């Protein structure tokens, strides 16, 4: 079980958080083609290494944020607030 630094509350146990999937996925416009929509819905990176993802402090302050996690070691490389580009 990891420990995650909530941008508001600091270092807390993973059990207080919920995972929200890969970060930085742009929602296409309504007139996009089928392939763009399919990629938005279903295609996700699956790296062996650093992965940018969304988390929410669901049993805490409720904030959504991004973090970068190493998928092999589970090292949390960076935590950054929503709306900021991947460092």
């Amino acid at each position, binding site marked *: *079980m*990891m*420990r995650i630094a909530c941008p508001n509350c600091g270092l807390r*146990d*993973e059990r207080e958080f919920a995972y*929200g999937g890969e970060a930085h996925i742009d*929602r*296409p*416009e*309504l007139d*996009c083609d*089928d392939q763009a*929509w399919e990629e*938005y*819905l279903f295609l996700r990176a699956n790296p062996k290494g650093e992965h940018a993802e*969304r988390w*929410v402090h*669901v049993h805490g302050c*409720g*904030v*959504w944020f991004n973090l970068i996690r190493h998928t*092999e*070691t*589970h*090292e949390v490389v960076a935590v950054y607030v*929503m*709306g900021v580009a991947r460092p």
Partner: protein
Amino acid sequence: MTGYRLSHGGGRIDRGQSIDFSFNGKRYAGLAGDTLASALLANGVQLVGRSFKLHRPRGIMGVGCEETNALVQLEHGLSSIPNVQATMIALEEGLVAQSINAWPSLTWDIAGVNDRLRGLFSAGFYYKTFMWPDWHWFEWLIRRAAGLGKVPVVPDPQRYEARHVECDLLVIGGGRRGLAAAAQAARDGKSVLLVDLDQGLPSLEGVRTFEKTAALGVWDHGFVLAASEGRVLHRIRAEQIILATGKQERGIAFANNDLPGIMLAGAIGRYVADYAVAPGRSGIFFVNNDLGWRSAIEAAQCGVGVRAIVDARPQVLPELADRARAHGIDLFFSSLVRSAHGRGRVTGVTIEKPDGLSRLACDFVGVSGGWNPASQLWTMAGGQTKFNERSQSFQPDGLVANVEWAGPEPIEAEPIWTVHGGDEKTMFVDFQTDVTVADIKLAARENYRSVEHLKRYTVLGMGVDQGKLSSVPGAMILAETIGAEPGTLSASKVRPPFVPTAFGLIGADLRGERFRPRRYLPAHEWHVREGAVFEDIGWERPAAYPVGGEDIQAAAEREAAAVRSGVGLLDGSPLGKILVAGPEAAAFLDRVYVGTPSTLKPGRIRYGLVLNENGTILDDGVYARLQDGSFLLSPSSAFADRMVRLLEDLLQCEWPMDVVVQDVTEQYAVWTVAGPNARNVLEALQPSFDLSSERFPHLSVREGQLDGSEVRIQRVSFSGELSYEIQVPAGQAVQMGDALMAAGKPYGLVPYGIEALEILRIEKGYIHVGTDTDSETQPGDIGFGGAIAKKQSDFLGRRALTRRSSLSPYRKQLVGLTSLCGGILPVGGHVRAPSGQSGGFVTSSQFSPVLGRGVALGLVEQGQRRLGEIVEIVSLGRSWQARISETVAYDREGGRLDI
């Protein structure tokens, strides 16, 4: 001859304190400080169990958590715990234990015949031998004969608890290295926790110590689970972890190496030194390393008869040889034990010496095939290992964040895994699961060349000891067999828990009522008083209010009929209540709902659907516009929490707009008054607003006073009748319920539960998302295609509705289904398609008291254009004729809503 208690020594026992216990129905006496295993050995009990598959007689082999044979069923009052290692049980007065897997008794075991049929029980025998004509012909016999302890018949009466612990440093293992590391860190001012499986550890200044505590596994970021005496679960978070878990001895595979009396050499040393227990009077040690010698010499020094040491190596340190000779021990170098002899226990061995074979009598054998680091927790933490040639073992290697390996120096050992020349079918590698050298070779011939495949095919290392003794020898023998370089195949992956652990401990206190908190309605006591029968559907909700011996179904039908003919009262408090406010609230909700909330006038209510981005219906419900910039959403009870999360997700991550969301679901109780007389009931309570349809039409909301209380009333209906949902602060729920009951008395008002509500909504074709829809259902499938066509802007899931699959004419669509005989169609029954396959299914079905027949909803392929068609519905071998009909079975024009 068998084991006995030595007249002196024994660092752990108290000779002044005798303890009575029972094993297999016979009474014995041990001493305070004994384990069940040491007490059994001291009492001369050599046969303690039968093996898993072949039912061969087995004795104690080890002294700690590596024990593979001595599994017992521990009877403790009401509880009966299967498969406990006798070496891990502290002896207590009155302890009752039994051998497992022996039937009808340990000494006369019928299935012992399996041993003579062992050719049949080779690796993969399940897959090969019993396939013809049918596995089920044999299953009962195999289940009876193979297996471990008995599953307890009563719920585990043990109480478990969980604690959270934090520390700067966690030291696992209280040996010399662990104690030194803990003491040093404490001197450096760190908060230190030391855990050890054993007891009697020295107390160290500034170090918290948990004895009789097993670390079960190491997870991310310094998280460790540990179990104290199997009853207390510690959830430990450590900044730094030191693994001082020591080493574990391994055996050597020779013929009949599983006879009772054959033990690990180090275990013998421990029994002698700690418990003053000798395993016999005349022993032979078969070793490939110096520590094996030390065990033999230590035993001899304490007065145990050691006859010979057989070492695979050509020589040892002169000091060791001299000390052994001084105790009269015969020494055989460059020699091996080829096989053991005896019936039910070891009585002798055949030794293979450079000058030939010879036979020696003995009554116990100590084996030391080298030492492995106890690296299980290291690999669980993600650590790598590297083959160490000198010790023929896999040593921790590399780095793991926050985890440090502080294991012992590797012990030099001769590579000797099997002694060739005997019957390989009796050379055991994993004793508990009866995996032999022959099984490993067979698996290799059948191309199971990875240790993980070997493990699963042969069950090597799958016993409760998790291969502590067997996985390294198994990997080495496999490598030898397939001609791989030694050390290129490492032992199979070890997983938590490190020692056998009760499921109850993992759940700890979160059992029974505490597994999930019950959610009670604010007026729960009121419902109890009214005779409700409750159902737990996320909330404790009244299913019905039976009277005069009615069952639930009869009560629900009576209640539903009363709503149609008079008036009923439902507690709808679990309904979601979410306030969405702000200058951009309307624009935000336009992106959330299929409909267009921004066109709604203040004071009015509309029904809407919420989709996911795949176009699937997530929820349905009404939303009210309270003021220009404020909405009250009413998602269904089961979706309320998820709706709040969804809105927060969208606002924080997708569309940062000037909007706030507040969940007020639990702050208000909701009383629904429904039926032709609903208005009369409310009129009797002095409403501060006009209830007439002209001033307060269907689908509108009013705030004011009712019976002197502040209320918000929504005129909406899930029953098809004139209906008011009255929201009051949760604390006034009972008071308002009483007032409504009193006001409704002249009109025959009855309380109704969710079962009656189910009848009413099916009669009206009102869907329940997740029941009448599934993960493919889109708005067009339930008749909302038009609403989407009208809307210009984007909303959740809109793009998905234009994919080819969404536009297919073959989609399943919601329809009514009417049984031709008037009966009740089975929920889940399938609509037979012309192809014979399923062309849809029944989603909801009930008896309608007002129509006097069954009513049902279903998802049927192309259903909306097949109205009137007669279809066959099949379920569990029965069949029904039904007509595809409109979803609304009662009051199709909706006139009853508008009175």
